[in-house]
């Protein structure tokens, strides 16, 4: 019995200690970085506290009962109590009232978050296995992998999928919404301040579901406008005699344009629009940071590094030389 | 103290020592009612799916108004309805001990049921000829699956009826086993009621 007591106390302490530790987590849901996420956190934090109190009460009662009523050798038989109506009513009503108190602000928040925000930037998010396309229809911009947004202003996302159900989630900015083919689900996000906010697809969508990451980049309004302007510029033409031009040749020879759009060059609709590829911080569904090492890994064997993705290069994988040239071309597409 | 004989399985024996059931109904009867309860959910899910898809196809695609022949289906519905009547007569027969009557009505019920299924099969071939098969659109898929499941249930019912008929012929369906006929009857009436619902929701209501 004494050993049980010590063990119980030890486990409890250990658990509390472990619970206290938390590393920095960029996809943390409890560190809101925008108004939507903050409304959610403001709603759930008191609920967590209530749940914690109930937890301590119930587990405490269990521990109390275990220690207080253990059989002692000469103790008499217990009284055969069958029930107590008042207690039953009490512990039916009390939780019901607590839950009512939770339900009311919950429903209020549901409706509040369902309201369309004013003065939002409209973006259509097209989810595909395994990357996100962002179409700013009003602004005439098409990009991929990164949701660029102005600080302090809502983006209203219209979610479409062309294949299976995905789910769009940037936890520091807000909750998730499923992207269901055939439906127009909508959500909005706001960012308090500039920075990169990480998320990922949260509805199992196939082999590389784990690799379908998301990123939102919030910028001051002026920078956002500048970005828009940059995205609307035509594609950079590679200067003759440069490695970039050799890459351009590879791009055409190997048929990249059959899947990818580079404005003025090709009109593919399977893969991301690459017109301003070099302006992005990540690629391949934000699975990789945009640098030469990763580009080499990717271009050398896309299916090997990201199973199940749709980049099946016509004619088989690229040679190392082709990859080098192509990297130069990609880097030129600012 | 009376002998405690625990007989169970699909036969109801009149056994003076058989312990009375807690409800007074036989195990088999309670089982059939329970099973029919679950069948309600089965058809409920299929019917709901059909209703959810109703009107969802693009205009211009094949739709009920293009293929349904209400008079024809009304006749086969009537046939099925009548089979419920003959089923009742079959049950009355065996309860009265008139086994010849029982066999006549059991066979009639089976034939009426078979006619219904045959009529449906013919109706389906017409639909297919008119360009409506399983995979054309939402309406066609949900229609064929719903009515197909129902038709399969009728077919199983017909097989059960023919089995009873055959048992009776061999003298293995005495009046003491009347409840077996009653339970098959319950199943048969259920299948009939489901058809009434389907006919109304699918065929009659536009």
């Amino acid at each position, binding site marked *: 019995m004494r050993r049980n007591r010590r063990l119980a106390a030890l*486990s409890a302490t250990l658990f509390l200690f472990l619970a206290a530790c938390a590393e920095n987590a960029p996809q943390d849901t409890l560190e809101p970085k925008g108004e939507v996420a903050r409304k959610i956190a403001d709603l759930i934090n008191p*609920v*967590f506290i209530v749940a914690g109190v109930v937890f301590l009460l119930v587990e405490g009662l*269990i521990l109390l009962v275990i220690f207080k009523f*253990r059989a002692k050798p000469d103790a008499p*038989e217990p009284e055969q109590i069958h029930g107590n109506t008042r207690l039953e009513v009490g512990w039916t009503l009390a939780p019901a009232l607590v839950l009512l108190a939770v339900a009311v602000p919950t429903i209020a928040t*549901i409706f509040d978050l369902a309201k369309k925000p004013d003065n939002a930037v409209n973006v259509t998010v097209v989810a595909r296995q395994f990357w996100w396309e962002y179409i700013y229809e009003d602004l005439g911009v098409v990009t991929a992998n990164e949701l660029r947004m102005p600080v302090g202003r809502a983006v209203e996302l219209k979610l479409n999928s062309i294949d299976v159900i995905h789910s769009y989630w940037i936890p520091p900015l807000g909750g998730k919404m*499923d992207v269901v083919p055939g439906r127009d689900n909508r959500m909005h996000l706001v960012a308090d301040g500039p920075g990169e906010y*990480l998320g990922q697809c949260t509805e199992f969508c196939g082999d590389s579901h784990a690799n379908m990451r998301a990123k939102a980049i919030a910028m001051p309004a002026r920078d956002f406008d500048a970005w828009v302007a940059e995205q609307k510029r035509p594609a950079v033409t590679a200067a003759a005699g440069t490695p970039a031009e050799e890459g351009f040749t590879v791009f055409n020879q190997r048929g990249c344009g059959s899947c990818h759009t580079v404005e003025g060059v090709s009109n593919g609709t399977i893969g991301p629009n690459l017109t301003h590829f070099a302006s992005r911080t990540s690629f391949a569904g934000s699975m990789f940071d945009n640098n030469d090492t990763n580009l080499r890994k990717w271009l050398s064997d896309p299916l090997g590094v990201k199973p199940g993705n749709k980049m099946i290069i016509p004619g088989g994988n690229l040679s190392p030389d082709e990859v080098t040239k192509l990297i130069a071309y990609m880097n030129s597409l600012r | 103290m009376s002998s405690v004989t625990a007989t*169970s399985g699909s036969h109801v024996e009149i056994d003076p020592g058989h312990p009375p059931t807690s409800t007074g109904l036989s195990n088999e009867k309670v089982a059939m009612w329970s099973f029919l309860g679950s069948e309600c959910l089965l058809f409920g899910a299929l019917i709901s799916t059909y209703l959810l898809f109703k009107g969802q196809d693009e205009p211009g695609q094949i739709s009920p108004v293009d293929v349904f022949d209400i008079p024809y289906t009304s006749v086969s519905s009537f046939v099925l309805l009548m089979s419920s009547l003959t089923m009742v007569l079959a049950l009355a027969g065996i309860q009265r001990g008139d086994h010849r009557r029982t066999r006549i009505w059991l066979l009639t019920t089976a034939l009426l049921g078979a006619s219904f299924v045959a009529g449906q099969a013919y109706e389906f071939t017409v639909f297919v000829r008119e360009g409506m098969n399983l995979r054309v659109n939402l309406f066609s898929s949900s229609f064929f699956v719903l009515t197909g499941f129902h038709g399969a249930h009728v077919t199983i019912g017909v097989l059960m009826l023919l089995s009873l008929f055959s048992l009776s012929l061999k003298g293995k369906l005495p009046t003491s086993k009347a409840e077996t006929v009653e339970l098959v009857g319950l199943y048969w009436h259920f299948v009939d009621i489901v058809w009434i619902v389907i006919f109304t929701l699918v065929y009659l209501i536009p």
Partner: protein
Amino acid sequence: MAIVTPPRPEALAPEQPLHTPIRFLRRPTGYTKGVWGWMTTVDHKKIGIMYSATAFLFFLLGGLEALLLRVQLGAPDQTFLRADTYNQLFTMHGTTMIFLVIMPLSAGLANYLLPLMIGARDVAFPRLNALGFWVFLVGGLFMYSSFFLGGAPNGGWFGYVPLSRSIPGHNMDYWAFGLQILGIASLTGAVNLIVTVINMRAPGMSLMRMPIFVWMSLVAQFLLLFAIPIITVALFLLSFDRLFSTNFFNVSAGADPLLWQHLFWLFGHPEVYILILPAMGIVSEVLPVFSRKPLFGYQVMVFSGIAIGFMGWGVWAHHMFASGLGPVATSAFSASTMFIAVPTGVKIFNWISTMWKGKLTFTTPMMFAIGFVAMFTIGGLSGVTHGVVPADTQQTDTYYIVAHFHYVLFGGSMFGLFAGVYYWFPKFAGRLLDEKLGKLHFWLMFLGFNLTFGPFHILGLQGMPRRIYTYPEGRGWDVWNLVSTIGSFVIAASILVFMFNVWKNRKPQEVGDDPWDARTLEWTIPSPPPEYNFKEIPLVTSRDELWHRKYTEDEHGRSVRREVTEAQPTLAGTAVEPAPPEGHEGPDHVAGKAGTGDEHDGDGEHDGQAEEHEEHIHMPSPSYWPLVTSIGLPIICYGMIYKAWLVAILGGVWTLGSIYAWALEPATAPEDTPDHDPERGHDEAEAVHA
């Protein structure tokens, strides 16, 4: 294992069978022993053991799958498992644990115990009962055969469309058809147990005198009865889409993928109550015995179980809060989800009150039962937080959800089921499990369980999604994933302890009828029970019938052992009042049982009935038709999957033909007259063959 049959009396040697010359086609008899005896048994107790043992084997498989997943996730960017392998493993882990472990283990215990607890000799339809087990077995084997035939199901245990309808290969066909087969087992089992409980209760056992495990199992069976047809339809629609290109979930034809989710969760939510209610029933049996007090608030516990059963139909879309249902629908389901916590919470308080002022002994079953209460509370609380819809849009599809359901399904159902296994093991097997090893199992499992799944709460709130085969560095998830992986191996160790315990105590022991000093009817008969269960059908005069036969109460309401345990009251000439009509239950027992005491002139337990036996107890005969019928089902399914229509038709003919042969076979074979003479049989029952 033992087949308890009395020796064949010469005068009653069975006749030569009338028809079949081929020996093995002859219908097995009550004397048939060995493997064939087990394969043809219709005895609910043997069937219960087979269900439970098979479920345990699948538990090991599902656990192995889990360990592989945890090894892969123990550190970021691991390449121990490929993506597709991982997807197969997590799909099969979930499918296995739900459909091949918890459900059949609950069914196994219900099968064994329900007739004993209500004073019946068997279930209503013994051969149908056997069918349920064999169909379960072939269904599980069918599903697992996929590992060797192109790959196991890989679309998640929930199979969302459009993904599941378009995954190439046959993996998801095995999933859909396998579940259909298992659904048949569940549905037939549900009908059987419902009829048994409703119709075969011993005289005097009104509904409100039934042990609470019977009640909770009954509610679960009703949930199965109505939920299984819904998933049956959903799976047919999916299979038709995959095989015949129908349009049920074809988005380009205008279908809405949410239809699948609605159908699936209309089944899926009642399903989770199917998974938890039997375990709740077990806890409600175990806690009173080891607190030496009755269950606190029996009526409330019954009604809250029924309430949970009803309300469970109204919350399904809480699995769809992020799918875009709109604020009105999500608000409605948020409210219903919160309020189903009320009857659930009531149970927790009643369990604690059962122990309050009790005299607690911490046997292994008691520890698992208390563990259930403690762990289920955590799972229930996290469940309530899911009901806060805006928060759920952060929580859903993350490890926070995985934490919730493992706390309720493992910390809840599995702990409850282990409590049941340890509690009833002496009754099933006639041997006690080692208490020290049992306690070691408990503590290791408790520690391992919390180490594995506790961190999932944190991981989920830190943004780790589910169903991902790997994760990158720098997300802050590394430490907790490692802790969880270590915890999973501690769980594995605990299971080895359990298996060692069972193996170590494989020799029969003298445990007696009632080693725990328990409260319900199954402890009035030998351990293990004879095939016919009760020498005489008991007459029940109160709830906790056995307790009232052993104990009376003093003026403070404390139990006082009677000098003479009240014998089985007899039906004839008794002074006992009949049970009041249903619904008019006042006290939970009937006063005035003194009449039965007068009929005893001796000191024996079985006085007053020994003289009356010239009759014999006829039990239904074994049959191989359930086994044969079950084999037809995977044949149909293999034929369908590979579009080998002839094979499918052959399977259909096989199944139908077997059902015919079964229907025409009498429940008790005329030439099978094993003499279940209780007087003789009782002595022979002690001779157990290993």
